């Protein structure tokens, strides 16, 4: 398998009130095409910053970020925007446009890509069918449940046929059952379209459910990496052991409290 994402020695430092915060410290890893790659860590481990370094919503202070062979760090503003159309992202709080209905939310990335209204609408209807929400086309986000909102966000992100899908705690605001249905949908998308998925989470259950490979993040460092099977069979680091224990001993929501 060929790599689709290759991150080399990235560092990201923020200046905060009490000095510098190193959110990401010298991280390197490779993600292969078609994989579902998990990044797990406790809150504050740097997961969200790390995933934003993959589409340069956060620009690393140092290092290289290759996506499909191109180093994003060297692209111009315009080239980067074009490249981002191939890297979809979904979020914990869905981030839908509240003043647009479901259909127009899905049309939004197509508008950005400069696709005509008629064609965009046709594509949006197809995608609504894919995520099982055809009857909600004219509803507004405020009228939907959390799970339905995330489905709309997934339909929206698929509109531009991305090669990569970044999921930033995409199921953390959902109940266990809805989480399961969203994860199943993500798995289907991975199979059906061959989209590489990067999953950021603090829940081992999510990793176990859909990921093939996993990286463990602790205080901005990547401390362990391998297949999910390896990690569960023989975790090498304390952090990994802790995360597995958390996932086993407690229900999903309780882990959240524990963290």
């Amino acid at each position: 398998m060929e790599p689709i994402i290759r991150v080399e020695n990235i560092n990201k430092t923020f200046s905060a009130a009490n000095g510098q915060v190193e959110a990401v410290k010298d991280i390197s890893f490779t993600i292969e095409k078609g994989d579902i790659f998990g990044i797990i860590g406790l809150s504050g481990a740097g997961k969200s910053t790390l995933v934003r370094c993959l589409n340069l919503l956060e620009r690393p202070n140092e290092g290289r970020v290759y996506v499909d062979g191109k180093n994003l760090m060297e692209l111009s503003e315009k080239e980067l925007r074009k490249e981002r159309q191939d890297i979809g992202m979904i979020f914990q709080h869905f981030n839908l446009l509240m003043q647009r209905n479901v259909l127009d939310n899905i049309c939004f990335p197509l508008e950005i890509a400069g696709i005509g209204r008629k064609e965009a609408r046709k594509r949006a209807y197809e995608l609504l069918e894919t995520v099982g929400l055809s009857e909600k086309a004219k509803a507004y986000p405020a009228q939907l449940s959390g799970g339905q909102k995330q489905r709309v966000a997934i339909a929206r992100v698929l509109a531009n046929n991305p090669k990569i899908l970044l999921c930033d705690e995409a199921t953390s605001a959902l109940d266990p059952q809805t989480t399961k249905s969203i994860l199943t949908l993500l798995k289907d998308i991975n199979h059906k379209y061959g989209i590489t998925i990067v999953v950021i989470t603090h829940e081992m259950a999510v990793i176990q459910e859909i990921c093939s490979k996993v990286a463990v993040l602790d205080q901005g460092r990547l401390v362990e990496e391998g297949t999910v099977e390896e990690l569960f069979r023989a975790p090498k680091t304390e952090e990994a052991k802790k995360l597995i224990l958390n996932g086993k001993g407690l229900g999903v929501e309780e882990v959240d409290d524990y963290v």
Partner: protein
Amino acid sequence: MFDETTVNMLIEGTGATLYMTLVSTLFGYIVGLPLGIILAITDKTGIKPNVVIYKILDFIVNLTRSIPFLILLILVMPLTKLIVGQSYGSAATIVPLTIAAAPFIGRMVESSLKEVDKGVIEAAQSMGAGTFTVIWKVLLAEARTSLLVGVTIAIGTILGYSAMAGVVGGGGLGDIAIRYGYYRYETGIMIVTIVILVILVQILQGLGMMLSKKLDRRQA
């Protein structure tokens, strides 16, 4: 109650007040809307942070807003004369009204745009949206309810300011209230002008609130 001349004067005064208020609001937004957008995006949490631009505009806005309108009215008279050709009357009042309204409107626009969820802006950027698209399709579109409430507040405030213009012969209802009510002790006319002003504010406020509510899609 009043003779025909007085009634005609009151109708003309109402027209002049509406003319000054609405035209000044329009001009106020022509300057204030871009100003508010620049303030919102150049602030440190905005999408194009720029300390220098923000600080300069922030200072100018504060400076203009701290000048009492009555003083501003007199202060900009030379400029008014240059633009309108005379420094009294309804048309002339539009100049100081616009100058007073623009920074105030800019501030309201800034605060409306800052209410827009950062996550939604980030989502648009992750789709490859540029600055212009984010401003137009995310910031302004998502904040439209709040922006409309702002328009309503702006109209009310400018209407109040326009009444003050009566002091320098600015025309409109405020002018009538001062000339008849204050200088000539004709309390009846003064009360009627106040009643008309109250009704105008109520109607404009009601319309604005109704429209902004109708356009809001956030309720289930």
